[in-house]
């Protein structure tokens, strides 16, 4: 546990001493702020046409959470690309792997650090949502807001776990970032053609797709199947990362 913390602390230092965190966080802040105001206007205009039955705050929240998920697809590869690729390239992996820390400690420390950075990225966006929530009448249930953010966090966690695995496979940060983006995008769009099918195959594809499970969270439903999906996705790729680190010892360095 102490080793996990040591790695975590080092990674946080790396994010916040180098420009990585500032660039990523401020860009994310800028884009989400701009998009939020656009969404707000669009949803309010729509509500005038739709009449009093239209649930304006919920519509806005769902659209905005979807946007956060989409944006994290663009931003997370930048966060994870260096996790292991950089250590391998610099030779510092040799220091970590000859120190009394287990491979799993290294992977978890890095994963939690990148997850913390994601939380820092999401933090300012919560203020816009809180603003709308305070000014809506009737206010949507807090549960929806919280479960929505939990969904986005889990979704981001999947991206980070996949990203760290891919980063452990290569010494090139660019390859790691591009692969993370491409594979996750594939897992996202895989369900587009099967949305209305009833076949078993269609349902399997629906389940595999990363985005489908987010809908429930955005509606305020914490569904076990979604929770299991996201947590096992994260667990699976963390496991693969640990194996991949271990395999470095067997390959010609």
């Amino acid at each position, binding site marked *: 546990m102490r*080793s996990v913390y040591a790695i975590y602390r080092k990674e946080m230092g790396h994010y916040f001493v180098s420009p990585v965190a500032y660039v990523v966080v401020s860009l994310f802040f800028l884009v989400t702020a701009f998009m939020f105001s656009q969404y707000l206007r669009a949803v309010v205009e729509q509500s005038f046409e739709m009449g009093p039955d239209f649930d304006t705050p919920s519509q806005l929240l769902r659209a905005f959470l979807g946007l956060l998920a989409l944006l994290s697809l663009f931003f997370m590869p930048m966060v994870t690309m260096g996790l292991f690729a950089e250590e391998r390239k610099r030779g510092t*992996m040799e*220091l*970590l792997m000859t120190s*009394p820390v287990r491979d799993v400690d290294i992977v978890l420390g890095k994963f939690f650090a990148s997850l913390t950075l994601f939380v820092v990225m999401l933090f300012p966006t919560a203020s816009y949502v809180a603003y709308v929530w305070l000014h809506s009448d009737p206010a949507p249930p807090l549960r929806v807001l919280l479960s929505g953010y939990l969904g986005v966090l889990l979704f981001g966690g999947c991206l980070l776990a996949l990203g760290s695995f891919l980063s452990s496979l290569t010494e090139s940060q660019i390859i790691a970032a591009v692969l993370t983006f491409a594979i996750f995008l594939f897992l996202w769009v895989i369900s587009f053609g099967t949305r209305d099918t009833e076949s078993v195959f269609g349902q399997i594809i629906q389940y595999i797709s990363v985005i489908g499970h987010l809908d429930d969270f955005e509606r305020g439903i914490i569904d076990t199947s979604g929770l299991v999906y996201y947590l096992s996705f994260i667990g699976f790729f963390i496991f693969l990362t640990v194996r991949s680190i271990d395999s470095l010892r067997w390959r010609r360095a």
Partner: protein
Amino acid sequence: MIEVQDLTKAYGPVTAVDHVSFSVNEGEILGFLGPNGAGKTTTMRVLTGYLPATSGTAKVAGFDVTTDSLSVRRHIGYLPEAPPLYPDMTVSGYLDFVLRIKNVPAANRRARVDDALTKTNLGDKRNELIKRLSRGYKQRVGLAQALVHDPLVIILDEPTVGLDPKQIIEVRHLIKGLAGTHTIILSTHILPEVSMTCDRVVIINKGKIVAVDTPQNLTTQLRGAQKIHVETQAPEKAFADLLAHIAGASSVKVEPARASGRVTATVEAGAGKEIRNLIAAKIVEKGWPLYELRGVSLSLEDIFLQLTTDDAAHAQASNN
């Protein structure tokens, strides 16, 4: 402290280390000597738990490197060929991180960092970012990293690479100072380094151990032939003729010297035979001026070349 038995490491079809056995006593400095690609780094990586051995066993501080890797890693400090540094960290921040991953309790960390900085002469760079340091300083930070947690065994892969001559002397001093309380293995292809710092030398070539001994013994033992250097003023042909007829001279090489008219010769003689007096007498007899006559002691360099090239010749012979 370190026991290596029949250690073999193969990368697919290439055998980098081939049935290597040696041991290092507590407090000893062992030099690992060999040309590039001899298997020095691979052996060290196996000892540090970075690479698994293909076969054979290695024990460090009583723990097996394969079955008890974490315990081994707790007791070693390791400086790889390229110092493993994080450019964004300060020197002291980096050493603190190293102490944390080596499981050193918080109460001792400050003192340990200070101690390592003093030992490696980095006191005034403590708050400098590592990326702003020159190559020599980076190498020293790497060295500080290997000893900061006061490990039983310190493994250094070419610790003086990239340092200027003054720093090299400092580092050798530092390494010598660590002996006694620490067991040290260092690899190098710089020969004087071995004779100056190490208690014992392992010469390794093509993955195999060619010789294990003290630097002194290696020099005397292998000095089978003694070399004699002569400089005089004489016709080249006549001079060569004269030397060839001296009893005991086994090989004669005559070359014109830099100063005009003079010639130099290198004569090899069997061990224990003194032929310098014979040479002197003959030259005086001829009436030539004798400018120089001295025995050349075989340096570690010669021995090293002899051992490693002999081995190559053997390999070639067995292939044919």
